[in-house]
């Protein structure tokens, strides 16, 4: 065998060539780009200013009565930060966070061109996005007045550095350098499988901390975090972020095709879902990936209904459908875990901002129940499936509301002590939340054939908006009622 040395272009050279060729076919003018930028900046300025005003006026946390209250609040915010970081980690790892499109992988990154050089700009964008997201969160925390007396600039800097560090850390996790299959993401994980270990741990610890704080507070013990100057935190976060970014930079060359293409499908689906206003495009892919990871399940016959039920065709059918829905929940344990974890939210909110506890409870109840509506969503969206299952649509939909309904009833009763009373409106509010879940789950594929109306913001389709907010509209009304009745 002979060896021939081939001169491969640098990543930057190939990128320039690709950009030049692609731009030659585009008809986007510089003026058009500048107009888009101008519109974006204007929108951020107008709505951002309005948001800042609203937050300062209505959402600012009430001043704490004592140092003990302040300590509890700080500890709960720390727990919230952990949960946010965990969710951010999971989202980033679902996408990669570095990913290549099919075309990019095949025609450019799949060539002998330096892999690290090709990915370097993408790493920059990921770290920048992490820093931006962190800074925004830090700014919001500062706005609501929970910066524990420190300067808002320090809070923003700390959060931005933490966001950048977290983003870089997800890239390090993505590289999974030199690990065997079992250690990379669990046996049998498919290419680019979501690595949820760290994210789950962060969310779990966050909820555990919140739970501990709530329990201690109920027992008369007021925990507090050590008082560390915010700029010390910022310095430490910056150092950690820099170290993480450098490590990620060094590992870019170890990112293989399997790691880089796993999130592409999800990212493409997210883009299409946003462009076409079809959230189902994204949720379908997430479901597909979830069940692909499961792979195989143990099939068992559904239990025989009792004689009273078996005697009626309608009840027998319902019995089987509810059993199937229960089995579905059993195979999605994360939904049950989320349902239980969200129990903590109203109890934490009543310590942080008592006035917001009632509406937050409504929203948390919706989130806890909505995750249990997978069967309802499937049945509502597929006319073919409904025809195959037989029976009336009302029976099919009603059967798939049994499990979410019971779960919501238990959840609602378990969080009733938050408000210290159980008024007559409680069942009505719970039914409202269930109705919001039903409306959300029964959302049909978006239709674009509605009438357009000329508004100051341009042409809009009211029908499009009503389709998009289906479910959330009822939720907003219920939350408002809960706020008024608090």
């Amino acid at each position, binding site marked *: 065998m002979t060896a021939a040395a081939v001169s*491969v272009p640098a990543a930057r*050279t190939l990128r320039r060539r*690709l950009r030049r060729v692609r731009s030659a076919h585009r008809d986007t003018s510089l003026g058009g780009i500048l107009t888009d930028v101008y519109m974006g900046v204007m929108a951020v300025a107008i709505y951002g200013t309005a948001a800042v005003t609203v937050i300062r006026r209505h959402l600012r946390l009430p001043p704490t009565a004592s140092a003990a209250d302040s300590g509890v609040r700080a500890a709960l915010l720390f727990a919230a930060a952990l949960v946010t970081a965990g969710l951010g980690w999971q989202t980033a790892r679902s996408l990669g966070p570095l990913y290549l499109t099919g075309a990019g992988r095949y025609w450019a990154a799949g060539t002998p061109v330096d892999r690290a050089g090709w990915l370097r700009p993408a790493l920059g964008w990921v770290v920048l996005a992490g820093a931006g997201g962190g800074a925004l969160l830090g700014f919001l925390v500062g706005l609501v007045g929970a910066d524990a007396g420190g300067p808002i600039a320090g809070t923003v800097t700390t959060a931005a550095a933490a966001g950048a560090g977290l983003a870089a850390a997800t890239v390090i996790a993505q590289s999974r350098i030199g690990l065997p299959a079992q250690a990379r993401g669990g046996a049998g994980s498919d290419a680019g499988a979501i690595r949820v270990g760290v994210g789950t741990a962060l969310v779990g610890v966050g909820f555990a901390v919140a739970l501990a704080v709530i329990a201690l507070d109920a027992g008369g013990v007021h925990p507090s975090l050590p008082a560390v100057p915010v700029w010390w935190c910022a310095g430490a976060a910056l150092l950690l972020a820099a170290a993480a970014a450098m490590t990620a930079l060094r590992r870019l060359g170890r990112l293989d095709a399997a790691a880089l293409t796993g999130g592409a499908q999800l990212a493409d689906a997210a883009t299409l879902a946003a462009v076409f206003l079809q959230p189902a495009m994204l949720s379908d892919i997430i479901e597909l990936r979830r069940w692909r990871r499961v792979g195989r399940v143990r099939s068992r016959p559904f239990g025989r209904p009792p004689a009273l039920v078996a005697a009626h065709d309608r009840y027998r059918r319902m019995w089987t459908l509810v059993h199937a829905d229960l089995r579905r929940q059993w195979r999605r344990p994360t939904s049950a875990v989320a349902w239980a974890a969200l129990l903590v939210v109203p109890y934490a909110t009543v310590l942080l901002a008592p006035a917001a506890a009632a509406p937050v409870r409504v929203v948390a109840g919706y989130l806890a129940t909505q995750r249990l509506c997978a069967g309802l969503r499937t049945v509502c969206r597929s006319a073919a499936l409904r025809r195959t299952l037989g029976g009336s649509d009302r029976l099919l939909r009603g059967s798939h509301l049994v499990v979410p309904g019971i779960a919501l009833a238990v959840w609602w009763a378990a969080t009733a002590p938050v408000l210290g009373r159980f008024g007559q409106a409680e069942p009505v509010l719970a039914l409202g939340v269930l109705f919001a879940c039903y409306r959300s789950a029964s959302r049909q594929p978006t239709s674009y054939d509605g009438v357009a109306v000329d508004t100051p913001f341009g042409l809009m389709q009211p029908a499009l908006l009503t389709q998009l907010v289906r479910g959330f509209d009822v939720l907003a009304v219920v939350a408002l009622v809960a706020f008024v009745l608090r």
Partner: protein
Amino acid sequence: MHGNVPIPAATGPAESDAGPRGHHPNGSRPPATLAGVLRIRGLGRRFGDHRVLSGIDLDVGAGTATAVVGPNGSGKTTLLRCAAGIDRPDEGEVRLDGRPVDETDPRVRASIAGVLDDVDFFPDLSVVEHLELLAFAHGQADRVVVDEVLAALGLVSARDQLPATLSSGQRRRLALASCFVRPRRLLVLDEPEQRLDTAGRAWLAARLLAEKSAGCAVLLASHDPQLVAAVSDAELVLGS
């Protein structure tokens, strides 16, 4: 900055004293004993609890072709993806010229040309621009190669078309063309006969025979018995 990547040049058939190749519990037609390019041992892959491949052993020598055959869902594409380094096996090892197949290694990317189920196109690049980009990225400065491949695959009239305007057969031809405008040591093709007309299939068989003659190793999955019979020196039967 440009980098030099040593590409093992394709060589002609050479004798080897290696033992039987293409072993699989389901039975296989052993290939000729030639210098090994691709060596797979004990390969296993599963999705969740679902085992797709288990204990696969396979050798593909220089100047030989091995066909992977079997029904849908038997793991042909997964095996090819693992062989090309696009997917990671859960068990076993895949070696190319004695080195583990690591897709992050530029030498591996330079040596393996593959058309699997993942070929996508830039919507705003024409047929010829796709091929020129790939040839450039592989350090192939000679544009004549691109013109020759376009002519061989009957894509001359479509050279300036964007992918959205191509028929599925033309897209398939473009994907196949991408393998031949660049240096290669191992060809990995997943059902290359798909969407090709009769003339296209005949061209494909002739081209693969020519690749073998030039010393290139070929690993293909196919449902076309005629193509398999015409091209392959060994068969690996999955899922029987």
